């Protein structure tokens, strides 16, 4: 079925308004974008790793989630949802549950790349029929912007502060999407928010309605951590894609496919400049730091094109 922006946006929201996420935050946009891909008649159980999303959407006695929802801990959304899915399979066979259920986990990069990685890896390997969605904002934002393995090199965070001996984070980010591809699961995709949300919608739909485990990595900027004006969210995402910082691709049963190729790849400065966390890179004498980042992006882009047979 072809994507209709109007139709998708007119579906009833499964994450309601009135939650406490910041203006300009990518996480609830990622959640709504994914949940819009659910058929209205399908039930879903949502698991959520501890993080901004959890504490801001489910503060006792209020919840912003219309579907069944479970938050367990920071590092175990994958295992927790495995348990729910295992229970569903048994109870459905016994006739105790009649409805058709889908299972979707949401975790930030902290709960996914780092502390929750083992739990995620185990869940994917065991083949549970679920989608794990990482909303990647590139740091531990809930605890106050500490570095994660998803934080890009030279970003300033509260644990990679600038100083006379430091220019921010020392390491490049972990390529988790590729690690998930190595799990040989039926569907892995990398996406973010672009124009009419077609890319996010279609990938979510494939992830949800492909049998077996699926992983979606959604770049979901954080205005507090990245320090951009809240209204610039969509522009930041676009620049992430156009500079090839965050390429859009999907891997279906091991087949790599680039889902968007920028007409002319923009220099990385365009992505870095609007963000306060990279401000120091534009100081005189720091040109070589940006060159390092550019070289890393160029190398990875060439590798990706090769994988996608382009």
């Amino acid at each position, binding site marked *: 079925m072809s994507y209709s922006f109007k139709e998708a946006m007119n579906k009833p929201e499964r994450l309601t308004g009135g939650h406490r996420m910041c203006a300009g935050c990518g996480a609830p946009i990622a959640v709504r974008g994914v949940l819009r891909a659910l058929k209205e008649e399908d039930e879903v159980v949502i698991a959520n790793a501890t993080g901004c999303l959890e504490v801001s959407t489910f503060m006792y006695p209020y919840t912003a989630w219309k579907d*069944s929802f479970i938050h367990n801990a920071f590092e175990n959304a994958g295992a927790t949802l495995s348990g729910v899915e295992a229970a569903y399979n048994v109870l459905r066979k016994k006739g105790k549950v009649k409805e058709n259920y889908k299972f979707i986990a949401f975790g930030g990069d902290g709960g996914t790349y780092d502390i929750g990685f083992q739990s995620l890896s185990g869940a994917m390997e065991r083949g549970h029929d679920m989608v794990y969605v990482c909303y990647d904002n590139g740091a531990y934002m809930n605890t106050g912007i500490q570095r994660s393995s998803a934080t890009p090199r030279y970003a300033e965070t509260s644990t990679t502060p600038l100083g006379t001996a430091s220019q921010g984070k020392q390491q490049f980010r972990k390529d988790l999407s590729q690690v998930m591809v190595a799990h040989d699961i039926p569907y892995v995709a990398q996406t973010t928010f672009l124009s009419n949300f077609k890319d996010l919608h279609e990938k979510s739909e494939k992830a949800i309605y492909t049998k077996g485990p699926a992983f979606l990595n959604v770049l979901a900027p954080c205005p507090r951590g990245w320090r951009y004006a809240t209204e610039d969210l969509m522009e930041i995402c676009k620049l992430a894609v156009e500079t090839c910082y965050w390429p859009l691709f999907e891997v279906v049963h091991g087949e790599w496919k680039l889902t968007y190729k920028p007409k002319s790849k923009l220099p990385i400065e365009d992505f870095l400049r609007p963000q306060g966390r990279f401000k120091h890179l534009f100081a005189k004498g720091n040109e070589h730091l940006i060159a390092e980042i550019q070289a890393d992006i160029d190398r990875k882009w060439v590798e990706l094109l090769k994988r996608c047979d382009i």
Partner: protein
Amino acid sequence: MAIRERMSGNEAIATAMKQIHPDVFAAFPITPSTEIPQYFSSYVANGEVDSGLVLVESEHSAMSVCIGSQSAGARTMTATSSCGLALMWEMLYVAASNRLPITMALVNRALSGPININADHSDSMGARDSGWLQIYSENNQEAYDNFIQAVRIAEHPEVQLPAMVCQDGFITSHAIENIELIETEKVRAFVGDYEPAASLLNAAEPIAIGPYDTVNYYMEHKRQQAEAVKNATVVLLQVAVEFEKMTGRKYGLFESYQLEDAEAAIVIINSAAGTAKATIDAMRAAGKKVGLLKIRVFRPFPMNEIRQALENVGAIAVMDRSEGFSAAGGPVFAEVRSALYASEKRPHLINYIYGLGGRDVTTGHFEEIFETLLKIEEDKQSGEVYRYLGVRE
């Protein structure tokens, strides 16, 4: 008719699980409880049960799966030991606070470090404040009987708490002894169906589990949880009465053995109680008034009942198979002594740390302890309170 069999404590637990037939079983292997998931996997492989089997990559995930599964309305079980329980620690508290009646077979083993695979109680004693019910077992029969009862106790509407059934690693988990099994249909009828009040998979009434709980509510939630633990005492005894009707085997919060007129007594948990009973029989034959109190239920802690049972004894040794590192004695000692504080009579009380990391404890040791206690009773002097048994100094 009851079924006479011979099996290890691990097989006894696995048999109880097979008979109960849970919806989901999730586990990660660790010595000495590994055989339990092995047995259960073979039941699944042979089609004897059609439970969902989730073989995870760690104990942390095992408990996380149990929490997800039980929240989804499935009767869920697991088994572990030692460091496995330690890795579950964080999730034990979540399971209890979410009021999920998961049942766990815990095969007691020393915690690392240094690494040691043998029996002691440092694992379950460390988890004593996690909100789980704790039921201890002297032998394979008790492990089996306790596990079947634990499902009923945990799932009771006034309780709704997870329960761990403990037995000693190797000593009972691997020793093959006679056992009387209950017919499967009777076990199934005894435990009944699991009908949770709410579940993630009830489409008519979706629920959200695991909120961020603010200052305004957290304390009330903890109070409710504490009330449920208190309720468990009554439910434990009700279930024991029904169990006795079915099997003729009687269970209480603890077992008193030759305690009625005892001048000297020990308080003990799990397998070493059997060794102590042999000593008591021999000493009683020689006219010495010695006895024993074996704690079956450590959580909830039967504070008043233990006080009543012990306050007329002259001298008591509380046996701890784990070090609490309080520099003032082990955890069982601290709680038993606290129970006796409310008594006018206040018997002489000493504490022995014994059997750590599987160190043998013999009838000779118990004889030595009882003689020491009889001397304390005679002299009215406790001497050193915090003692070690069978250690090279």
